């Protein structure tokens, strides 16, 4: 393919010397660049998005789940946590079948204590998604900061950070998270534990995953650091943090986004695993993992839906986010361009 330099982004450049005729009706700018929206729609990224039905589907599913979950308090038909609204007789209702005692119908059935499963799932998904996003944000912030510092400063700071990163990378995320949680349980007074559990969970999951961000950002920083425009900025006296933020960071956002998306799926799975194991969110704010743990006990007595629907939701959520991340990674990888 040609290596000719390009003067403007998308439309083919007119032959040199030609003038674009002013069209009747447009403003005086005869040579405006297309709007940002038009550029986005015309970009390769959008093209690959629209032409992959799987990706569009995943994006839709993710969007629906996230919005539904975030709006749970508003749209859930019942509040599963208000004991006053619960009727024990409603317990163990099958999905879409009228309860033999109360005659109530629930879309996804009820659990042992008469909680509407649909509402419980909405609230549970909400917890899972919020914790997931928060953990990813925390990990990204930590990782990006450390990566920028390591790459920019170099020297012993760089070595130290990278050593820690290497050691941590060899420990699986779940172990790190469990350890942090274990320490927390041993240290914190029992009264505060329930309230603080969510924050500790976010920190635990975030701490287990920051390394990828740090590494990617660090290598980009190292690459950019020696370029002339950075050196020029330093000579002028631009303070280091500003250089990092304005010049280096934008170059890294692509890979960081990919890591974050896949990281979100991992965070959701990790959170649900921890909750399943009983060391995640407190029982007062059950997430999908907690629901599954509770539901597992009823598997043998035939009430399969108590486990099935939360599990299905979890799977769909993780799958959709993973698919999005996969597509993003392939779309942003210049070497895979066909």
């Amino acid at each position, binding site marked *: 393919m040609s290596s000719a330099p390009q003067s403007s982004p998308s439309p083919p450049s007119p032959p040199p010397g030609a003038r674009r005729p002013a069209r009747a009706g447009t403003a005086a700018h005869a040579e405006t660049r297309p709007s940002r929206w038009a550029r986005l729609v015309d970009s390769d990224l959008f093209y690959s998005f629209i032409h992959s039905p799987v990706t569009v589907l995943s994006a839709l599913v993710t969007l629906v789940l996230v919005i539904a979950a975030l709006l749970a308090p508003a749209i859930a038909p019942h509040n599963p946590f208000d004991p006053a609204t619960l009727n024990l007789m409603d317990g163990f209702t099958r999905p879409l079948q009228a309860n033999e005692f109360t005659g109530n119908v629930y879309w996804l059935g009820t659990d042992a204590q008469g909680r509407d499963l649909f509402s419980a799932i909405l609230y549970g998904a909400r917890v899972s998604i919020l914790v997931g996003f928060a953990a990813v944000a925390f990990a990204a912030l930590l990782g990006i900061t450390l990566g920028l510092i390591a790459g920019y400063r170099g020297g012993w700071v760089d070595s130290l950070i990278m050593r820690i990163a290497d050691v941590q990378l060899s420990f699986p995320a779940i172990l790190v998270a469990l350890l942090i949680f*274990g320490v927390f*349980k041993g240290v914190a007074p029992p009264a505060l534990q329930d309230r603080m559990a969510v924050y500790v969970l976010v920190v635990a999951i975030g701490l287990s995953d920051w390394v990828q961000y740090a590494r990617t950002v660090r290598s980009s920083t190292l690459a950019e650091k020696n370029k002339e425009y950075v050196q020029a900025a330093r000579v002028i006296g631009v303070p280091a943090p500003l250089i990092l933020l304005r010049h280096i960071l934008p170059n890294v956002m692509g890979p960081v986004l990919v890591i974050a998306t896949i990281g979100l799926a991992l965070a959701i799975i990790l959170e*649900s695993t921890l909750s*399943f194991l009983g060391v995640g969110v407190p029982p007062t704010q059950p997430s999908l993992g907690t629901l599954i743990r509770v539901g597992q006990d009823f598997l043998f007595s035939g009430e399969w839906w108590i486990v099935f629907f939360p599990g299905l939701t979890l*799977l769909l959520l993780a*799958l959709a986010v993973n698919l999005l991340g996969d597509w993003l990674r392939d779309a942003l990888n210049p070497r895979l361009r066909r």
Partner: protein
Amino acid sequence: MFAFILRRLLQSVLVMLTVALVSFGLFRYIGDPVNNMVGQEASMAEREALRESLGLNEPVPLQFLRFVGNAAQGEFGMSYRMARPVADVIVERLPATLELALISGVGALALGIALGVYTALRREGWLSHAIMGLSLVGVSLPTFLIGILLIYVFAVELKMLPAFGRGEVVDLGWWTTGLLTTSGLKSLIMPAITLGLYQLTLIMRLVRAEMLEVLRTDYIKFARARGLTDRAVHFGHALKNTLLPVITITGLQIGSIIAFAIITETVFQWPGVGLLFITAVQFVDIPVMAAYLVLIALIFVVINLIVDLLYFVVDPRLRVQRTGRAH
């Protein structure tokens, strides 16, 4: 070569010491060991005596040394919850985890490599697409869900396999094995699949990506330009180069299998060290947690060392660093 081994050994010792430090910190400072061991009724004098015997009044660095010394001999004190020496409990339960880890690890590796190579060579076929699609589901399915699903299908509905426990085990001195009994083997199937599925998916995707990458290289292009058969190109050249980085990742994976075993053992109530650890976290049984940490670190470090040595053996670029550079 010697310098390399020496350096790696030193690094390993350093890592172990760091882990020991963390472990010691847990042990000494989380909760009060004396209170946990003695209970309410003990008098002050008894507590003081215990403190003295545990060495809790000595300066901290000395305590750390004592801790390391004890740890090296496998002495981690008593489990708070079970009132038994931690070392005993761990040794008792280690074979269960190791057997499970080994079976699922080897299976995941073999199948993962085979599938990875297949999907890389037959990129466009429908089977490849199907396998890749399923692999994505595999990565998105949390381990515990897989376990629950398997239990439901095979234990609850089909009643073919046991849902819990390890079945009958045969005692071989300090190792207990479930491989020699039918019930033991039957009990192993679902946990092994559960544990191995994630690893399988990971390895398969890794091998596929690596192989696709290798197939794009110039030396493969040149091999084709020289008219080598597809078989020679794919399995002689591409596969060999693909498997090289896979060795490292696989080594790490074996380590992480042991961690994932925690989940699997919880779902299936498999009596291994993973279940032991999670129970310890729930009950804040510090000695067990500390010991588990050191144990896992040891396994990781040993595996990393083996992987590094393996790399040395397999990759000629590392080997011949001494004998003459380019000329």
